Every structure is written in structure tokens, then in C-alpha cells.
């Protein structure tokens, strides 16, 4: 694929998608919680921007609404809620270091390559533009998952989860020109409810184990251990 | 088969059966006499065994308080079963109805019936010796019975029949053939006979040394006519095994037909064979020492092995050839 053959707007989409991917890396490596939330908000904003550009490029008016929804939800509402929660939980200064950041970053890079390799077969269908976007969004999803695997902090896990959702939005918008409206609304509603519930759970977890370290949530298990008590 | 289910046949069968119980004490007396002679003693007269039986029959029987009805029924059952078993073995002539009623397997079964009741009777009173004798008897029986079956199976497979009359007929018709299987089977049979009739080296019929007895231990509580029946049954059993060896393995001379001549010759020949076997037994008992009880299984295993070898050499060497 040659960039020069693409119209400018599509070039812009690619650039924005690349930055979304970069922000995923930032999220993955960011040790300060507050900064991670900010990075997440930026990612949401960029996804909204991609939506906007796609809408403009493809003359798909319903995507304007979608862009607005994404912006409101992903760039504003959810980051705001997270922000408020961190303050309420007194986690503003919380930092968390990954066990071996280099390895994790390398794994994320490997996932990016893997995603690209996965969508290669689509080349036969001559869907090159979308292929790259799908690859990027897949990478964002996988890196989000990777982040959830390596972050031990509940809020950070939620960030990973939400960044996965960003990847999904990106895929939906850029590859398919947006899902049907009702589905989009439904998904947005679910994400919102999920966020509210996450908030509830932060408090419940905090109340029950006095921490938000998910590694300490290990009472329910089959393997014997020092805290191997079953739920009674 | 119908040809020997005739009235004279039945009559002769009854006569032959009676002859068994009549001759049985004689054989025992003969063995004792030869043995005494070999040991440089005069010994009791040959007919002493009859006198003993008569004496016992005339005496009152003493039964322990703790005995059950089975104790008193057992001598009759043991005697009857042993006698019936003996009646199936042709003594003077072949082709008698008794052989059709019960073949060689039934014979073994009847002997087992007798043994079971003997052992049960031994356990009935509840003495230590009775239980000991029964336990040992059943152990020896358990090993001897298959050996005996294997030995006779060698014969029956050769003759394609389990009917003793047919086996003997087959032999006589075939003439003398040197069969390896017969040698093994005969060896096994002799060992079984020694063990089953309670002779040295497995058991000693004259001992009352508590810890070594087998057969006598079971009879300890018996007296009077009960003891007589038990002793008599043992004597019939000895005669039975003698006849089995004499007439089935070496059938020559046995009568074939109902003529008086055949009967006479048959009687004479079988008496001669039995006398020789009895003398052989006496010699054996004199030169051998009694084994320790726990060597007995090895002895019987040898019998089983011989019999099995007989059977195998038959199916491998003789049928295939």
C-alpha cells in the first residue's frame, strides 16, 4: 500500500490510528494512575476524532452522532468518573511499577506484529486500507488485555478494559463505518453501566480487603496455599 | 448302554458291591500282616480287621454332649458314599449298570461327599483336634482331588469316555500300548491314592500322636458302631483305590461277560493284583518315613504335576501324532 495513493482524509485516519496505538503503549507503561487516566482520555478523544474524520470522508452522517457519543463517553464522562473515584479512594498519588517493563513492552510489540500478520489474509480481498485499521484496532484490544494481565491495580485494570473498548470502537468506526445506531447506543449504555458498576466495586473491594490490589483477591481458589480458605 | 441294563447285570452289580465291603478288611489285614513281617514282627492275623469291626459294632456308642445330629448321621453317609463310589469301579467284570449310573467324575464326587461329611463330623464336637484334622484333610483333599481327576482324565480322553467300563473295554480292545501319558497318570494316581487313603508318608493310620494325625483326628470322638462304619469306609476306600489302579491302569484279566468262568478268573486275577499292590504299599510304608505336614502340599503338587503332564502328553504327543 502506498500512502500517496490515499486521499488526505484517509491519511489522517491512519495517523490518528497510529497515535491511538501509541497511547495504548503509554497506558501500558504509565506508572502514575492519574497520568494513565489522562492518556486514556486522550485515546478516547482520538477515537472520536477518527470517527469524525471517517464521517467526513465517507459522507456518513450517522457517524457524527457516533463521534459525539464517543467523545462524551470515552473522552469526558468515563475519565471524569475515574478521576473522581481515584480522588475518593485517595489514589491520586498512587504509582505502580510493572514487574519487568521492557518485557511487557516487547510483548506488546509482538502483539502488534501478530495482529498485522493475522489480518494479512484479508489482502486477498483487496481491503488494504481497512486491513491496517483492523490491525491497529486489534493491537489496541490485545494490548488492553495485556495491560489487564500485568497491572495489579484494580483501577488500572479497568483502564485496560476501557482501552480495549476504545480498540473496539476504532475497529467498528474505521473498518465498517460504524455499527447500526441502536447497537452503538446499546454498547455505549452497557459501557456506561459497567463503569458505574466498576465504581461500586472499587468501594466494595476497598471495604472488604482494604486495598485495590487485585492480587489480594485470591481467597477463591482450588490450589492449597497460606490463605487457601474456601468461601464459607 | 441298554445292553448291560439287564437283570443279571443288576444282580451281578449288587454282588460285586457286596464283595467290595466284604473284601475291604481283608486288604487292610493283608497290608498290616506284610508290614509286620517286613518289620520282623509276627503281626496280627490277616482276619484281625474283621474281628475289630465286629467288636466295634457290638459295643455301645458314646457321643459327646456337644455333638449335633450331624455327628450321628455322618458315619452312615460316609460309609454309603464311599461304598457307592467303590461300586462303580469294575472289580470282577466290566459292563455292569453301576458304571452307567455313575462315571469316574461321579466317583470323585462321591468320595468328596464322604470327605466333606468326615470333616464336618470332625468339627462337630468342637474339639481342637477335630478341627485340626478337618482342616488338614480338606487341604490334602483340595490338592489330591484335582490330581486324581487329571489322572483319570488322561485315561478317559484316550478312551473318549468317562465311563469306567468303557475305558477298560477300550484298553482291552487296544491291547498293550506303551503310552507316556499312562506312566505319568499312573504315577500321579499312586501318589493320590497314598494321600487319600491316609498312608505313610502323608498320614499314618496307626498313629495317635496328636500333632501329626489327620484322618484319626477326625475320628477321635467316635466309638462303637459309628467308629466301625468310619473305619470300614476307610478300608473300602483303600480297596477302591487299589482296584482303580489294578483294573483301570492294568485291566488285563478282568472278566468280560457274565459266565462263571469269567467271574472266577476275574476274581482270582484281581485278588492277585491287589495282593501285589498291598505288598507294595507295605514295603513303601516300611522304607519311607512320614513327612512333616507342611511337606504334604509339595507331595501333592508332584501328584498334580504328574497327572497334568500325563494329560498334556496325551493331547500333545498322542492325539496329534
Amino acid at each position: 500500500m502506498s500512502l500517496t495513493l490515499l486521499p488526505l482524509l484517509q491519511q489522517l485516519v491512519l495517523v490518528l490510528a497510529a497515535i491511538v496505538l501509541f497511547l495504548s503503549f503509554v497506558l501500558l507503561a504509565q506508572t502514575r494512575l492519574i497520568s494513565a487516566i489522562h492518556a486514556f482520555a486522550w485515546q478516547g478523544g482520538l477515537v472520536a476524532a477518527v470517527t469524525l474524520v471517517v464521517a467526513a470522508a465517507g459522507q456518513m452522517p450517522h457517524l457524527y452522532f457516533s463521534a459525539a457519543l464517543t467523545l462524551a463517553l470515552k473522552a469526558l464522562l468515563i475519565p471524569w468518573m475515574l478521576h473522581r473515584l481515584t480522588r475518593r479512594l485517595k489514589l491520586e498519588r498512587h504509582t505502580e511499577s510493572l514487574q519487568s517493563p521492557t518485557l511487557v513492552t516487547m510483548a506488546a510489540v509482538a502483539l502488534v506484529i501478530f495482529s498485522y500478520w493475522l489480518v494479512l489474509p484479508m489482502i486477498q480481498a483487496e481491503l488494504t486500507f481497512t486491513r491496517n485499521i483492523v490491525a491497529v484496532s486489534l493491537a489496541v484490544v490485545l494490548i488492553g488485555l495485556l495491560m489487564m494481565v500485568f497491572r495489579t491495580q484494580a483501577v488500572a485494570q479497568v483502564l485496560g478494559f476501557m482501552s480495549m473498548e476504545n480498540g473496539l470502537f476504532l475497529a467498528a468506526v474505521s473498518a465498517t463505518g460504524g455499527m447500526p445506531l441502536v447497537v452503538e447506543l446499546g454498547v455505549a449504555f452497557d459501557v456506561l453501566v459497567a463503569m458505574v458498576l466498576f465504581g461500586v466495586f472499587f468501594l466494595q473491594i476497598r471495604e472488604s480487603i482494604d486495598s485495590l490490589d487485585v492480587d489480594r483477591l485470591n481467597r477463591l481458589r482450588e490450589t492449597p496455599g497460606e490463605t487457601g480458605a474456601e468461601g464459607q | 448302554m441298554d445292553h448291560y441294563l439287564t437283570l443279571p447285570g443288576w444282580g451281578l452289580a449288587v454282588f460285586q458291591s457286596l464283595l467290595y465291603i466284604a473284601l475291604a478288611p481283608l486288604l487292610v489285614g493283608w497290608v498290616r500282616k506284610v508290614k509286620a513281617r517286613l518289620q520282623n514282627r509276627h503281626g496280627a492275623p490277616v482276619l484281625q480287621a474283621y474281628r475289630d469291626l465286629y467288636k466295634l459294632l457290638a459295643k455301645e456308642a458314646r457321643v459327646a454332649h456337644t455333638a449335633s445330629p450331624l455327628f450321628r448321621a455322618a458315619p452312615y453317609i460316609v460309609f454309603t458314599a464311599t461304598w457307592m463310589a467303590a461300586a462303580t469301579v469294575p472289580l470282577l467284570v466290566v459292563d455292569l449298570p453301576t458304571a452307567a449310573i455313575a462315571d469316574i467324575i461321579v466317583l470323585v464326587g462321591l468320595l468328596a461327599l464322604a470327605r466333606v461329611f468326615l470333616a464336618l463330623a470332625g468339627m462337630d464336637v468342637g474339639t481342637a483336634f477335630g478341627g485340626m484334622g478337618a482342616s488338614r484333610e480338606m487341604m490334602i483333599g483340595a490338592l489330591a482331588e484335582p490330581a486324581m481327576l487329571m489322572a483319570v482324565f488322561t485315561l478317559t480322553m484316550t478312551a473318549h469316555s468317562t465311563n469306567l467300563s468303557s475305558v477298560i473295554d477300550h484298553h482291552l480292545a487296544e491291547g498293550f500300548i506303551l503310552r507316556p501319558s499312562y506312566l505319568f497318570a499312573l504315577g500321579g494316581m499312586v501318589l493320590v491314592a497314598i494321600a487319600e487313603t491316609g498312608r505313610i508318608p502323608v498320614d499314618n493310620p496307626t498313629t495317635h500322636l496328636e500333632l501329626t494325625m489327620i484322618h484319626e483326628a477326625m475320628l477321635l470322638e467316635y466309638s462303637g458302631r459309628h467308629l466301625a462304619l468310619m473305619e470300614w469306609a476307610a478300608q473300602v476306600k483303600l480297596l477302591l483305590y487299589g482296584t482303580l489302579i489294578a483294573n483301570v491302569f492294568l485291566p488285563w484279566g478282568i472278566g468280560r461277560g457274565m459266565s462263571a468262568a469269567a467271574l472266577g478268573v476275574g476274581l482270582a486275577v484281581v485278588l492277585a493284583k491287589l495282593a501285589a499292590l498291598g505288598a507294595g504299599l507295605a514295603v513303601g510304608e516300611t522304607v519311607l518315613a512320614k513327612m512333616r505336614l507342611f511337606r504334604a502340599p509339595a507331595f501333592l503338587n508332584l501328584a498334580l504335576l504328574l497327572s497334568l503332564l500325563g494329560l498334556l502328553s496325551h493331547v500333545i504327543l498322542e492325539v496329534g501324532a
Partner: protein
Amino acid sequence: MTMQTALALAGLAVALALTSAVVSLLAKRVPATLRLVATPLLGLAGLAALAAGLAALLLGGSIQATLPLGLPWLPWHVRLDALAGFFLLLIGVVTCAVGLYGPAYIRSFEHGPDSLTALGGFSGLFVTGMLMVVLADDAFLFMVAWELMSLSSYFLVAYHHEHGANRRAAFLYLLMAHVGGLMILLGYGVLAAFGTGFSFTELRAAQLPPVWAGVAFTLAFIGFGMKAGLVPLHAWLPAAHPVAPSHISALMSGVMLKVAVYGFIRVVFDLIGEFPWQWGVAVLTIGSVSALYGVLAAMMQSDLKRLLAYSSVENLGIIFIGLGLSLLFLSTGFRALGALAFVAALYHCLNHAVFKGLLFLGAGAILHSTHEHDLDQMGGLLRRMPWTGFFFLVGVLAISALPPFNGFVSEWLTFQAALQSWQLESGVLRSLVPIVSAVLALTGALVAATFVKVYGIAFLGQARSRHVRRARPGPWGMQAGQGWLALLCLLLGAFPTWVIELIDAVPREVLGGGLPQAGVHGWLWLTPVSAQTASYSGPLVVLMLAGIGLTAFWGLNHLWARGAPVRWVRRGDAWDCGFAPPSQRMQYTATSFAQPIRRVFGLLFTIDESVTQQEDGTARHRLKIGDRFWGWLYLPIADAVESAAKRVVRLQSGSVRVYLGWTLATLVGLLWIIT
């Protein structure tokens, strides 16, 4: 009477058994229901089954029907033919006895803590299941009935569940029954895969390549062998049979094991229908090992019901020896000899049902009146319970294969079949069969030793404990149940010709030829092959034994006695070589009785024996006999499962991050695979 009537009678039997189960629901409110209604109904069901079986055997032919139950495209097929009829007869005989015996036996449970409804309900279902297995004519109904039989008998095994050992026995039983059931199901699956459907008619028509026929045979052999308790799949049997209530033990050992034999015959002889000689060798080998191992293990036991259970392993071994011989002869083209061995096996099935039923009922009677199952505590019961003692003696003689009782006849027939092995072409097979017959002979002799031990220790001698000394004879119902079976032991032994004429319908139907020679010389003479080869006259043996014995008794006690100068029988203390009057503690025990044989065959068992010196100078003897197959077969499997489970639970480590890692890994792995 027509086959329709016979089938209707069989249906009536099933219905009565089901009714018995349903009626038992009332037992919670009215405990006497079980005694007065449910158990007699069971007996009636047995009677109906007996009648149906007799009719089917006498009439010959077969009749089919379908029931509107089951799968939409596979309704329940039922069929009554000679083979089914024979096993109906067998079930009926023992169930009748249980119907007579049960009410009195159950009475003692009425004040127990356990549910009577469960006892009655599952007994009814158990009998229903067995009857339906025999009647089933398609694989699905067969499996339903089969598992119904297993499941309901499992509940009965677990009936006395206070003891941990009983629960473990029930667990092992159900587990092995389940595995066996699945094997059978797969066996049918193999047949069906080459046929058009699951009804037996279609399975019979299936054409199997030899390899798959071998697979089907192996599955069926393992599945049914597990139920039949063949070594080495026998471990559940000696554990489970003894712990059920005794009348149920009688049904389980006497009948349920035969239902397994039925299944084996149905699948291998009837449905597969073609057999290479290797199968015969396999069945013969397993049968021989079971027979010998079973009786040796029985010899080692001192728990009466456990001993009887091990003896069932032995008897099933003998039955399978018969079936193996039959397979061997049939595979080499000797149809008549195959039929002979087949009849011998069936005859032994019937006999074992009768005498094992009798012995278990006897053991139940002892348990009922003394609450004792340990032989070493018994003694002298013959004088306390004369009728039970007498019937038990009949059972002991029958199971020891002593003439003139029934066990002897079937063993005799098996020997006759084995002795025809000279006709076989192959020298290897020819030499194998004699070894099998040697095993059979050894088994027979050891059985006699074992049951002399049982009878001598339990019924003779003196009581070894206080509650045994106070034993009372049981109620008449219990004795009637035993008496009926004891009578059958004698009749089946005394009139073998008639019995074989009855059984002969089965090989005629299944194998296409029976034993035409058996009754040629009239009812008095049994000549299975030809008169020249072998003959046996059951009636005459009975007559002569009884005649001579009674004559001798009468002669000596009456004729001879007249001239006697002194008192004819005097009671006194036991002489015992002049030692002090023997006490009951000086008697041989079951353990000491078995000691010589334990010395000879000890290698086959794990024997843990020790004598420890007590503080007070007395010595204490401890003996524990284990089954080597536990260590060889069962424990390794249990350990493998346990260690696999230990490994697998690492999946559930408790950390949500690890779980997410699994999701990620699965996703990536799958994506990798598809591209």
C-alpha cells in the same frame, strides 16, 4: 398357552414388581405395608416371571412387541424368547424365595432408623430392572433397564449407610457399574455403527469387520465381566454384596450376576454371532483365573457374607469357563459340543442362583437371629436353628459340587465338555483345555474345603460368643424361603434330564442346535454326548444313597440293636485324647482352619500377619488379608486420577490476572492456529 400369554405373564411380572415399588411409598406412614403388601407382591412377580419363563422354554419360538416409550425413532422393543425365558425363570425362582423370606426379615428393620420406603421401593425397582434387561429387545431399553438395575441395587447396598465401609463399598460399586454400563453402551454403539439401528434385530443383522467385531466383543466382555465380577474387575463385588440386606444380597449374587451373563450371551452369542477362537481363549482364561482366585479369596475370609460374595466370583468364573469352552468349540465348528458347554454354563447359572440364594438367605437368617456376620464368633448354630442349619447344609453340599445335588450336575457337564477337547484340531487349544479343567477340578476341591470351613465353624462345634449361644430359629417365612431353594437344589440335581430338556430350547434358538442325545435313554439317564461316552443317573444316585444309608441306619440301630447287652448310645463329655473338657475357645476358628491353604497359596494375597506379646503375658494374633489386585489395578488408576486432578486445579489459582492471561493465551493461540 401361547407365547402371547407368556409375554403377558412376563409383563405382569414387571407390573407386579413396579407395583411393589410404588406401594412401598406408603411404608412411611404404615410400616407394615412393606411386610404385608410390597414384599409378597415381589414374590408374586417372581412367580409370574417363573411361569412366563417356563412357558417360553416349553413353547419355543419368540414373540416381540413395542412399547410407546423411549426415543421417538426407537420405541422400546421387548421380546420373549427361549434365552430370555430361561433367565426369567432364574430370576423368578430366587425372587419367589425372597418374597417368602423377605417379610419376616424386614420386620427387624421396621424400628430401624432407615427408610423402609427406600428399601421396598428400590427392591421393587431392582427386580423390575432385572426383568426388563432380560426382556429388552433394543440397546436403548437394555441400557435403561441395566442401569436401573445397577442404580437401585446401589441404593440397597447403601441401605445401611452408617458405616463408612458400606458407603465406600456402595461408591465403588456404583462407579464400576457405571463404567461397565458405559462399556456396554459403547459395545452396542460399535454394533450399531455397522448396522442400521439400535433394535436387536438390526444389530443382529449388522456385518462387522473382524477388527470392529473384536472391539465390540472386548467392550461387551469388559462391561458384562465387570458386572459379573470377573477377576480382575471383581473388587466391588465382595465389598458390595455383603453389605446389602441379606435377601437383597441373595438377589444380587444369585440373580443380578446372572443377568450379566445373560447380557454377555445376548451380545456375543446372539448379536455378534461370529467368533474367532481367540475370544474363546480369552473367556476361558479369565474364567479360570476368576474361578481359582475367587475360591482362594473366599477361603481366606472370615466374614460369612463376604466369603459368599467371593464364592460368587468363583462360580461366575465357572460359568464363563463353560461359555469360553462353548465359544472355542463353536469357533472351530463343533456345534454340538458348543451346545454342550453352553448348556453346562446355563445349568450352572440356574444352580448358582438357587444355592447362592439359599446360602445368602441362610446367612441372613443367622444375621437376623444373632446380629453376627463374623464366622469366628459363631458356632453350634445347627442345634439352635435346626431348619436353617439343615437347609444351609444342602446349600453347602450343592455349592461344593457334591452328588446328588445340583452343583454337581453342571460341573459334571462342564467337565464332559472339556473332555471333548481331543476333537479340536489345534494342539495349542487341545492342551489349553486340560489346564482349564485342572483349574476347574482344583476349584471344586477348594470350594468343598471352603464350605466345610463355613459349615463346620458356623453350625457345628460350640458357640464362640454369647449372642450366638442365644440364637433362636427364625420365623416360618424365612425358613420357607430357604426350604424352597433347598428343595430345588435337590430336584435340579436329581432330575437333570428334565432340566436339560428345558434348557435345550436356548441353544436350539441361539446356536441353532441343542443336545439331542441328552435324554435319549429316558429320564433316568443323562447322556449329554452319547451313552458310550458318559452317563449319569441322578435319580438312581439319590435313590441308592438314600436307600443304602437308611438301610444301614435302620439295620444297625434297630435290627442289630436288639441283641445289644448295654445301653446303645451314651452321652458324655468329649474325649479329645483325654485332655480337659474342651471349651469353645479351644476350637479351631475360621482363620486357623484356612491356615494350611493360606500357606500354600499365600503368594496371591497380601498377608499381614503378626503376633504381639501383650502386657499380661498373653499373645495377640492379628491377620489382615488383602487383595493384590488393589495394588495392581485399582490404586494406580485412583492415583493417576488424583494426581491429574492435583495438576489441573492449578488452573484455578485464584489470581484474576492469571485468568486473564489464560484468556489472552487462548485467544492468541487460536488465532495462531487458524492462520
